[in-house]
């Protein structure tokens, strides 16, 4: 009977992995601010929309620019059909990334005319949200475990961080994680379209 129980366990894994039990954010509330200074309650503000979320800080011109450019490629891969989809960039450097700074970033990358929000918040909210989304951060070269969500005041620090995008469905459930800078745009666009079909 041992094999039968292995079989039962394998079935349980299938159901747990692909069935009902998605990790859901729907009961959680993160008060954030968009780049136009309007208040956004994450993720409730996006209920019913498929969300692609990326995490950056704007003083990071290399890998974070690659992540944002990749998200823009994903947006392009939807070929103008962005109905029911929202792109969200959340900074993990709230001290420097004010709404005004995020507005400059949006303009630089040409994100303003897209369905795209760029969010910041107070340090505690951002820290809690990043922990929740599995985005680890550390001051350059330092241990991530010793990072407590606050940054030095010298305005000149580098943040090492997880390279990640998260796909969230219209019910606030986390459906996938990707490596933000390297995940091929077409594949993510397919996943977005899959969730949109599921929704309707």
């Amino acid at each position: 009977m041992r094999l039968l129980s292995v079989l039962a366990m394998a079935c349980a894994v299938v159901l747990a992995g692909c069935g009902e039990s998605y990790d859901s954010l729907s009961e959680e509330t993160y008060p954030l601010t968009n780049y136009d200074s309007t208040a956004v309650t994450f993720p409730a503000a996006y209920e019913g929309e498929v969300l692609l979320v990326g995490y950056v800080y704007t003083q990071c011109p290399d890998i974070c620019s690659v992540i944002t450019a990749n998200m823009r490629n994903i947006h392009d891969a939807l070929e103008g059909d962005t109905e029911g989809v929202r792109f969200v960039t959340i900074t993990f450097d709230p001290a420097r990334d004010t709404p005004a700074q995020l507005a400059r970033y949006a303009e630089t990358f040409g994100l303003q005319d897209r369905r795209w929000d760029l969010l910041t918040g107070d340090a505690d909210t951002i820290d809690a949200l990043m922990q929740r989304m599995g985005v680890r951060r550390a001051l350059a070269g330092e241990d991530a475990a010793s990072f407590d969500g606050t940054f030095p005041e010298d305005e000149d620090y580098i943040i090492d961080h997880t390279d990640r995008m998260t796909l969230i469905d219209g019910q606030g459930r986390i459906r996938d994680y990707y490596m933000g800078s390297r995940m091929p745009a077409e594949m993510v666009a397919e996943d977005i379209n899959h969730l949109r079909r599921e929704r309707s």
Partner: protein
Amino acid sequence: MTFMRPLALLTVLVLLFTLTACADEQPASDVPLPEEPPVPADTFAVVDAWAGVASEGGTTAGYFTIENGLARADTLQGVTANGMDRIEMHETYEREDGLRGMRPVEELVAPPGERVRFAPGGLHLMLINMERALAVGDSVEVTLSFAEHGAYPLTLPVRDR
């Protein structure tokens, strides 16, 4: 005990199904790079230079490729530029704990007969606190300094990533 055989087979099938059904952690694509031509002999050049867009007061990155076709190594020892608070050589790297980090690079050897690439996600110039915004059509002048070759002026046209 032969009745266990089909059950074992079924188990394997279910496990396989488990793996394929949930295989959603797609890896990064490993498209092989096209065969590249050899570094031109007897010349030393820096090619394919560009910089990313930037907002006023913002920080951006610059990229290029060193082609050392000479018989001996050279060393990139630094970079200078006007129009920004400062400019540094950096490297984005994967830390042991999986985080993506960024660290300064003091100097860099360009071995004979080889290319050294500054490219997104790896080596880059860090252009810190630009005095004015950089848009497509603009360019940035920098000077690389090599141990052997000396000063190497370079124009980085601005690209929209």
